């Protein structure tokens, strides 16, 4: 009898046997692999930043190290460096506005993580990168010049800020897809301006002009920040363009 019961149980189990389900693994994978979270999006955006940004940043930093190793630090070196830093602003800003340059903004705006979030992500990533490079350079210069940190920082970063402001100003006002060319033009101008200034006023880094530098720095920083905010606001909506067919 006991045997029978055990067998019965087995037979009953078999009686209710169903054809093997085929989609179990796929289903389980899908559930374990839930929709990507915001952090995944952010990380993937890092991957989509073009290599030129990383390359330029590294070169700049390494170049600074090499320069300091081989040559004596002088005001000329500081000036050269401050003229080269704007190039990082150039690549960074053109990276941030890449969607508009390549006519991807409409598509991106309709996605779950839309243009606004993409732009903020890029801004965040590039902001951190730029900041790291600047701080890195300042650290490297530690004690090697007569200038204090703040003063050195101001000398190095002001042309960079000028570039930022100029580029963003132009991008925000010109309805143009040629954002990259604009940025390039601004960078060239900044370089020229910087050269003229250095050549024209030999003692530009002395105490005499400290106030000038300080004020310029602050003004440019504030203006740049305002332009960035303006740029980000624009990513929330497609700009009405009456030349497009409605």
């Amino acid at each position, binding site marked *: 009898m006991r045997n029978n019961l055990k067998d019965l149980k087995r037979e009953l189990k078999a009686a209710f046997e169903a054809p093997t*389900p085929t989609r179990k693994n796929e289903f389980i994978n899908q559930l374990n692999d839930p929709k990507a979270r915001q952090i995944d999006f952010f990380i993937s955006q890092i991957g989509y930043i073009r290599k030129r940004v990383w390359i330029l940043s590294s070169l700049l930093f390494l170049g600074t190290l090499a320069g300091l190793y081989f040559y004596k630090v002088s005001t000329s070196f500081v000036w050269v460096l401050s003229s080269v830093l704007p190039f990082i602003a150039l690549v960074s800003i053109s990276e941030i506005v890449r969607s508009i340059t390549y006519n991807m903004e409409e598509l991106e705006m309709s996605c779950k993580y839309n243009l606004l979030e993409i732009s903020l992500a890029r801004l965040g990533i590039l902001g951190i990168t730029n900041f790291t490079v600047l701080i890195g350079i300042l650290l490297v210069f530690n004690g090697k010049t007569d200038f204090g940190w703040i003063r050195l920082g101001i000398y190095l970063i002001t042309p960079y800020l000028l570039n930022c402001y100029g580029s963003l100003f132009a991008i925000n006002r010109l309805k143009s897809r040629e954002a990259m060319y604009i940025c390039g033009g601004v960078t060239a101008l900044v370089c020229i301006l910087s050269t003229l200034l250095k050549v024209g006023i030999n003692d530009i880094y002395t105490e005499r002009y400290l106030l000038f530098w300080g004020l310029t720095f602050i003004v440019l920083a504030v203006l740049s920040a305002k332009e960035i905010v303006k740029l980000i606001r624009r990513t929330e909506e497609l700009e009405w363009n009456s030349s497009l067919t409605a």
Partner: protein
Amino acid sequence: MSISIEDQYDQIYRYCYFKVKNKEIAEDLTQETFLKYFKQSSYINRGKPLAYLYTIAKNLCIDFYRKSSREEGLREEMGESDHISQFETNFAIKQAVSKLPIDLQELLLLRFANELGINEIASIMKISRFSVYRKLNKALGLLKASLGEEDLL
């Protein structure tokens, strides 16, 4: 979240297949059951997770009946499923089982095929533990009667 999909998928699938007799539909309903289960964040229902899971499955199957009986005619007329069992020997048992009342069939599936506990079965079928025992015995009795003892091996 004490339900493991790995463990319960086949069980729920077997249950759904028993009710709808179609492989694809059974699998669809199984997946839907799990999706619904995990969506529900109310802890009131989580008290007896397994029972809750089966209840979802049961309701989905009922919804499916309603939809399909409108379109295709009643399920009963669909006849036997076309699944060829590997175990030819228990054809007799299959026959005997299919002649039982539906609620007893379901009971046998839950108890012997899916190996659920008496408590869980009571929750799912919304009857008392006592009723579960009673019905199980009745089912087994009916089976034995229709098969005759000698065939039970």
